[in-house]
């Protein structure tokens, strides 16, 4: 069953005053003292806990979708409600699968919120890019000559040239293309991960390695102050498997 969502992420019918009567207030009143026990139990307590948890998830997903609404291709109330409720449902499934890992380092509600925020943000970014191709482009130093760019000051030009040179000499083709996609073309990391069939964490690790190598190289060349890096890259980049260079959006 879908819960209608207000623009601020609260569920419809919620009173303006936090203390006012309404579904959200009633749900908070019904929230279990021990979420893990209630969600792990059987019977009416379990059902009530699931209902309260769903309310939390809708609220957090609604909050996230509202923050990112400018990225949505369709901001009609019906479309937003659908995204929010789907994200809430999927986040609930993810949370329940990890319920045994809750260690109480935060309130349960905070722990729950982050699942809905992650799911909703990922879904909005996916929708934003669903009809856009993602090209894994390499750098080409033969075009767009940096010295012809009047907007760059001399120092910026020198750094850009050095950076481009370093990208060609200390990065693999794959690393360079991932860096360009994420930081030049601004493809969201989870969208790129989805298109390449990899994980957000794996791409972030690639980007981390890129940054370590570039910082090491530009520090050695005197463009960055020394002794800042705590990691030294291996001397020679190892070729990595190269995925296809263009991944189309779903249509």
């Amino acid at each position, binding site marked *: 069953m879908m819960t209608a969502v207000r623009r601020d992420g609260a569920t419809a019918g919620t009173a303006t005053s936090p203390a006012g009567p309404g579904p959200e207030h009633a749900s908070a009143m019904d929230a279990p003292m021990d979420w893990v026990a209630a969600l792990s139990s059987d019977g009416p307590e379990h059902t009530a806990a699931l209902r309260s948890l769903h309310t939390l998830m809708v609220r957090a997903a609604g909050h996230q979708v509202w*923050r990112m609404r400018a990225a949505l291709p369709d901001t009609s109330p019906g479309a937003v409600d659908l995204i929010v409720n789907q994200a809430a449902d999927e986040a609930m499934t993810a949370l329940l699968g990890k319920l045994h890992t809750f260690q109480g380092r935060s309130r349960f509600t*905070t722990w729950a919120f982050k699942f809905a925020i992650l799911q909703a943000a990922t879904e909005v970014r996916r929708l934003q890019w669903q009809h856009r191709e993602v090209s894994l482009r*390499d*750098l080409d130093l033969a075009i767009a000559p940096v010295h012809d760019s009047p907007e760059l000051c001399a120092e910026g030009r020198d*750094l850009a040239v050095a950076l481009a040179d370093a990208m060609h000499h200390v990065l693999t083709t794959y690393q360079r293309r991932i860096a360009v996609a994420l930081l*030049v073309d601004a493809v969201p990391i989870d969208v790129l991960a989805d298109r390449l069939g990899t994980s957000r*964490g794996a791409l972030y690790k690639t980007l981390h390695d890129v940054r370590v190598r570039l910082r090491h190289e530009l520090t050695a060349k005197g463009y960055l102050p020394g002794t800042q890096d705590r990691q030294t890259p291996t001397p020679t980049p190892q070729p990595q498997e190269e995925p296809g260079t263009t991944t189309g959006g779903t249509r």
Partner: protein
Amino acid sequence: MNQQPPLPGAASLSGPTADALLQDTTPWLSCEECFERMDAYAEAAINGAPQQDQAMDTHLRGCAACHEEAQSLVDLLRDV
């Protein structure tokens, strides 16, 4: 027919892009570990007792998606 946009040249590596490419993201923290720590990190932030978690701070500066989600969680906690 698909027409590919021109490849980016060195001029695209200036300003904020250069800063992002040269961001110091050491000590390493994965996106998955960032997600694990995010709830306690956000609560500490709203309680005025930010955690001394250098790896988390560093990761959030280097990962736009995790940064957005952590900030969103902080903002949500402030609202509830």
